[in-house]
Structures are given as C-alpha cells and as structure tokens.
C-alpha cells in the first residue's frame, strides 16, 4: 500500500486554515470571502437611495419612518469564487535534485494536496489542472473534506514529463475559463521562453494570481565545480562550462533575480508570491511561509505554538 500523500496529523492541522483572496469576484452566494459587490448576502453593507424597480423587501422602513425618505439596504455578497490550481508537471520538475532531496514535483504535489484539503474543508470548489506543453484535463474537488480522497489519488498518480510553455498555458487557460477567479500556479517557472508575460496576461484577464515558486537547494546552490557539461532536462541542450565558486555565485544571483521578478510580477498585479525550497518541511512551509503576517500574529496571540 502506497504512503498517503499527506500525513493525517498534518491534515488535522490544516482544518484550521482558510484560503483567502484579495480581489472581489462576482459569483454565486455561498462562499466565505466578502465581496465589495452588493447582493443577496447576510452582512449589511451600505444604504443607498431607492430607485424605481428596487426590491421593496430591502427598503429600510425604520429610516423611512424617521426621515420619510426611502433608503435601500445593501448587503455584502460572499460569492463562491472558483479556485484553480495549476500544477507544473514538466520534466524540469523532476530534474536537478540530488538523491537526498525531495524532487520539486513531489513537493509541489504535496503542497497542492494540502491547499486542496484546506479548500475542501471550507467547502470551496477547486479544480486541479496539471500542465506542461499544454493544459491537461482538470479534476474538480468540492463538497467537503470527505472528497479529498479522489483528489489525493489523482495527484499521486501524476507523472512529470514534457516541456513547459507558459504562453500555451495562458492562451489555453484564457480561452477555456472566461470567469476570473483565484489562480494558484505551483511551478518552478522554468521556461525556455519568458513566463513573465503569459502570467501577466492571466492577471490582466482578471485572475488573482498566486505564484508558488518551488526549487531545490541544489538548484539554487549548485554543487558543481570544474569543467562541467550541463544538459537541459527539457530541451536537451548542452552547455560546456568551467565553474568555480564565483560562477556558482553568479548563477545563484541570476536565480534570485528571476525569483524577484516573479515576486514583483505578483505584487504588481495584486497577487502573491512565495518561494519554497523542498528542504523546508511541508508543515513549516504552510504554517510559516504561506500564512499571512496577520494570521501569524493571531496565532501568536492565541498562545499556540507556531
């Protein structure tokens, strides 16, 4: 029997969390994130003048009795916003890690599974969609925590392979999903082309993007020296190079610059970015790296261990 993709102890801890987003989306009532759009919600939002054709059930009759003017009560909508998880399943996700390290693909699968579980606990509707050259068929998870099993099995059965193409991803995603929502991309963001522009397209289309950048320590700090012949795992291109510590430092700087550009992309579009090394424990990554400062302060105030 294969080991579960996430341990039960971690799942119990994940039940306390909620996936939150910053943008307001139109959508069906039933979600848990407040929207700036008024609608048939439960929480009072504001008053406005009554116009003809408005629903008389929303008139504030107490204000009319005092002011003899018709004011209409507006309620805050908590829409059911779609959460889409794009999981990078390209060849680069399994390349470039040493024997003692967890591969990026395994780490990304576990991280995706954890997010799916958090969403299911809050009755969110999530779709998981692997991609490499193109988008693969999605699987939708919704309906509570007891529907986590099929999603976990799906993630466990995934195989990595192929090249990454964010242009193709953006083109296909925009054409298939016109309704904006929360878009979480779990990837190493290693593309031969420029992944910045396709992601920018997705943000421009109205999606709130969350970039989870996964890398291995050996990928960020390569243990290489001397004369090395490097082979790209996806394209098969070769590069013969002589390395020393200075060259490796230049490599690391280029890597960090690229990660910074991804972060800048996310922040510029109101989205979020997190860089995660596979050397971090998954629990630490979720409860330390992925939690907002406010949530961490709240946890500290509650006197609970971090």
């Amino acid at each position, binding site marked *: 029997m294969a080991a579960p993709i996430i341990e039960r102890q971690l799942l119990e801890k994940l039940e*306390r969390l909620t996936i*939150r987003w910053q943008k307001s989306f139109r959508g069906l009532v039933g979600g848990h994130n407040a929207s700036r759009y008024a609608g048939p919600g439960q929480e009072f939002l504001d008053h406005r003048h009554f116009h003809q054709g408005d629903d008389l059930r929303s008139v504030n009759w107490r204000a009319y009795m005092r002011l003899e003017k018709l004011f209409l009560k507006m309620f805050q909508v908590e829409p059911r916003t779609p959460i889409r998880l794009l999981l990078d399943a390209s060849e680069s996700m399994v390349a470039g890690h040493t024997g003692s390290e967890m591969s990026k693909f395994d780490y990304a699968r576990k991280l995706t599974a954890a997010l799916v579980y958090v969403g299911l606990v809050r009755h969110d509707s999530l779709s998981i969609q692997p991609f490499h050259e193109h988008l693969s068929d999605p699987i939708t998870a919704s309906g509570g925590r007891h529907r986590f099993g099929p999603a976990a099995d799906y993630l466990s059965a995934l195989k990595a392979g192929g090249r990454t193409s964010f242009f193709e991803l953006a083109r296909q995603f925009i054409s298939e999903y016109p309704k904006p929502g929360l878009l979480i991309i779990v990837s190493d963001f290693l593309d031969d082309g420029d992944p910045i522009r396709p992601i920018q397209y997705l943000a421009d289309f109205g999606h709130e993007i969350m970039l989870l950048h996964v890398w291995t320590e050996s990928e960020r700090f390569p243990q290489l020296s001397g004369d090395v012949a490097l082979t790209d*795992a996806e394209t098969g291109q070769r590069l013969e190079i002589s390395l020393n510590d200075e060259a490796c*430092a230049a*490599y690391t700087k280029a890597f960090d610059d690229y990660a910074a550009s991804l972060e800048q992309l996310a922040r510029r579009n109101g989205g*979020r970015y997190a860089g995660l090394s596979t050397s971090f424990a998954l629990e630490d990554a979720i409860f330390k790296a992925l939690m907002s400062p406010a949530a961490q302060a709240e946890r500290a105030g509650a006197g609970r261990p971090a």
Partner: protein
Amino acid sequence: MFFVNLSLAEIGMIFGALSAFTVTLYLLSRARKQQRVATLRFWVSSQDAARQVHRRRIDQPWSLLLQLLAILLLVLAVSQPRWGDRDGGARDHVLLIDTSSWMAARTGQGQNTLSIDARREALRWLRALPVQDRVMVVRADSLATPVTRFESKRDVLEPAIRESTPGQSALLLEQALEFARHALRVQARRAGEIVYAGAGRVVSAGEAPGAPAAPKGPPLRLLLTEKPVENVGLTRVSLSRAPTEANLWEVNVSARNYGSQFRRIPVAAAFGGAVMANRSLELNAGQEVSVTLPLRTQAAGWVEVRLFTKDALSQDDRAQLEIPEQKPLRVIAYSDDAEALRPVLEADARIETRFAATAAYRADADADVVILDRFRPPQAPKVNSIWIEPPQNGSPVPVSKVAEQVALSRWRNDNPLGAGLRTKDLKLGSALVFRPAAGDISVAETADGPVVVARAAAGGNQPKLVVIGFHPMRSNMRFELATPLLFANCLHWMAPDALRTRNVQATSVGSIRVPIAAKTNPDTVRVLSDSDTPIPFTLHESEVRFFTPRASTVRVLTPEREQVYSLTLPQVADSVWQPPAQALRGLRSMSGAPPLAKELWAWLATAGGLLLLIEWLLYGRQRNARSVPTLPRRPFELRRAS
C-alpha cells in the same frame, strides 16, 4: 644524512607511484563532468564568470604542486631520515657468553646458577649500550660459536643471550677471545669492546692458565660472575675386563675436588640398579684420586657410577657406561688326540672349546670354528676351519710333496696370520708342502714351499680355512711360543669381533685422544658415533684424536681393540683465568652514548601535514563550502479560519 627505513630507490618508487596516483586523480577531477539540470538559463548568465574561472584554472596546478610536495615530505618522513653520520659513532662489540659446563654450577640454595647471573649481567650491559651500537653474540665453551651477526636490533640480541645455556665442554677463553678479535678486525665497521660474561674458569691444558697477556686491539670488558663454588666431580670412569676372569670387570674411577676444602665422598658402582661395589674417596682441595671397583657380571647392561654428594655441579657426579655383549668364540676340535690340543685351546677365557672324536664329525656343526686333526672329513665343513696335517689326498690345498727333516725358514709377518710369530732353527720332522692357489696366503714357508697356508673366503660366502702341514703339538714346535700364537692368529683372523679387546670409558666431551697400537694401518681405524655415523679424526703417531662438543657415545675401532667412550661427563674447568690488568670490569666506565644522528621525520611529517592543511584552506575548503537555505522572502496568504 641517511635513511633508516628506505633506500633512495625505494623512496623514488613510492613517491613516483603516489605522485602518479595523485596526478591521475587531479586530471580526472578536471575532466568534464556530465550534469543534468532543470534549465540552462541561469548558467548562460554566469558564463562570463565561468570563462574567467577557466583562465584562472590554468594556475590551479599550484594545488597539485602543494599536494605533491606534501606527499614527498610524508614519504621522506616514512623513510626516517637522520641528519648526521650513518654510523653516528656507533660501534660494534663482541659479547662472549660463557656456556661452559662450569656455568651450570649453582651459586646458592636456590636454582640460581652462574649462567643466569652471567646472562643477567650481559643483558644489563646490552641495555646500557647506545641503541645504534651493534653486537655479535658468541657462545664460548670449547668452541666459539657466533649466534648472531653484528646486530643492532635488541629483540634479536636479547633472545640470543637468554637462550645461551651451559653446555658440556670447558671454556677455551683464549680461543674465544681470538675469535672475537678476528671478527672485530674483519667484520666490524668501528671496533668496540670485547665483552666476556662468565665465571672465567678455564682448562689449564698444561699451560699457565692465567698468563695475563697484554691486550691487543679492542679493549676487553669483564662481566665476571665468579663466586666460591665447592664441587667434587668424576673426571674419568673406565671399564675393562679383568685379564684373570671372563666375568670380572674393573671399574676405574677418577674424581677431583675442585673446591677449597677437604671432602670425603662415597662412590658406588651399580649395575642394573643394584649397587655392586662402593668405596669412600678422600680428597684434599684440588686433589684428584682414582680407585678401582670390581664388578662381576656376565650380562650386558648399563653400569652407573655415582658420587654421593650434594655440590654445586651435579652433572659431573654421575656417569653411565655400557658393558657390551661379549659372546665367546665356540670351537669344536675333532681329534682323536684331544689332550695334545687342549693346552692351546683352553688358555683364553674368551674361547669355548669342545672336543669330539673324528667319528662324530658333522659338516653342519654348531660352532664358529672347526679344527680337523689329521683326518679327511666326508664333507667339507660349512664354517671356518683349521686343518692340521690333513691326508695328502684330502687336503683342501693341494699338496706338492711331503718334506722330511725340513727347516721352517720363514714366518710371513706381513699378514695378520703371521704377525708376531718367530722361531729359530726350527726343523720339522715331516711336513706337507702345499701348492697354494692364487689368492691363498702363505703363513709359514720352507725351502720347498709353504707349509702353512690360509685361504680367505672367495666371493664372501665360502668359509675361511687354514691348513697346517704339520702338527704343531707333535713336532718340535710344541716348545715354541709361536705355537699358541699361531692358533691365536688363526682364530682372530677368522673371528676378529669375538676376540677384540673392549675398553669402555666415561669421560668428558671435547677433544679426545685415544691411544692405539703403534703402526696401526690408518685404513683400519674407524671412529663412529652412537648412530654409527663416522666422526672426523686425525692420527698422530699412536693416537687417534677427535672432537665432540656434545654428550654422546663414540666407538673407536682398530683391528685389535674396540674402545667405547661414553662422553657423558662434563668437561669441568680446573683453574681460574687471570685476566689482564688493563681489562675493564663491570658496567662502570662505559662510555656514554655518542650523539645520535638527528631525527628528521617528525619535522618532515609536520611540514607535510601543514602543506596539506594549507592546500585544503586555499582550495579544498572553498570547493566544499555551500550556503544554507533561506526562508522565502514573502509569506503566502493563508489565514486561520475564524
């Protein structure tokens, strides 16, 4: 400067092998390694730095040079170089360990012996020597036997000293000293001392034992262990058959008092475990006395002679001799006139004669020799035979004529049968003159021809025979001394073993001198060990000389005698050697250790280790240094559920 452990060639070979291995590893490490990576985009941006690195790598052979230099220093350290002269003032010494029999003497109530004391002193001297000095250990008794060559390894020398136990022979110190001088002269690189460890008891050998000779060549150091020792010991025991009685043996015992006090010591001879004779010996200091103990026995066996005393040296208080088996010579005389032959045949106790009538003749008679008196047997005897005046037609040697009133002109003294025979103007009334065949031995001759002829065994199977052409007891020869001698010669020629004189002696090992009959043919002399292997000997006038350093039984065989030497007594020295006045004594005044060659290996090993450390600090550590992982820069947005 010199190397202790390795030669220059070995250093070169080891360094070459290690250098080749290191250079190979270096070149292999510089070979391009294949690596599969997730992307090349960041490597492309670092290519400029990489190219600069490549140019710098041209200078990286300094790392290799540092490694090679460190290896060279470590190999040199292993070879243990020393700064200075190889000899380093080292000297070569000869240590003479006294292993003579006297060293087995006890020096107290316990089991401590002079030998143990001498070995202890020798070990103390050895441990006080500078470590680079070489020593040759020589065991000195009657021979000087080198046990080791000039050797500086103490783990070789100390066992050689410990295993030097007393032997059986006495010390010939001058010979050992001469050997030591020769060894130092020929083999030593720088002659040191000759060291003697022992009691200094030597055999006088007719010379003044203590003639102090002026020391020649290397100095002599004495580690003397002499202590007052009281000892009385057997010096010689001999066993001989009494001439008057066949079963009586005479045991001659000689004992010496080596001590300084008068001693009265019982001595006893035992045969088969039973005391057969005893006496009491009274010995003044330094006196040697001899006594004869009678021993009557017919059987062969061991005779043990023992001094009943408790003294320092127990090895010389007991001697064992073997009485050999003495079979009589059985003779049957077929004669109808036995009384005529009886005087000559019954004179010797070793001859057992039986007389029978000629009618009772049997060819297969149970005897060693048959005498046929004037008759012709129907069948020739199957054993050795003496024919006396046989019939003309029945003689085994053809008769040419019968001579009357013939004078016996000559005895052939050139053969054993005629040895010692002599007559003057002997005229025989009647005698058969024989016509001998080729190979026959003429013993007595007349003018007409031989009258006594002997025929040896032809082909080895035929018995010997002697034909006498006249009757010695019925002719004028019966009054001559030559008559019994003629029969004795005939019987001795036919059965030499039976009539050989046997002497058994117990004496000490070493150089043995055995007197033999004058003019003995050297080819007939044999000296055999107890395993019947020949022992080298020399003939000097009427002495046989041989040497044996260990306890054994040696037989000296001549045609007439068999002398058995039971060399079971130790050869005990009888005098104290007087060393030269210039000789050094004890461990005092030992010259201090000369300055040792300076050891360099520790410095070389340290320098090699430092070079390796520097190389690692300059090159190795940076290769292995890696940054630690860092936390992500910005947190993700997860929040606790309200």
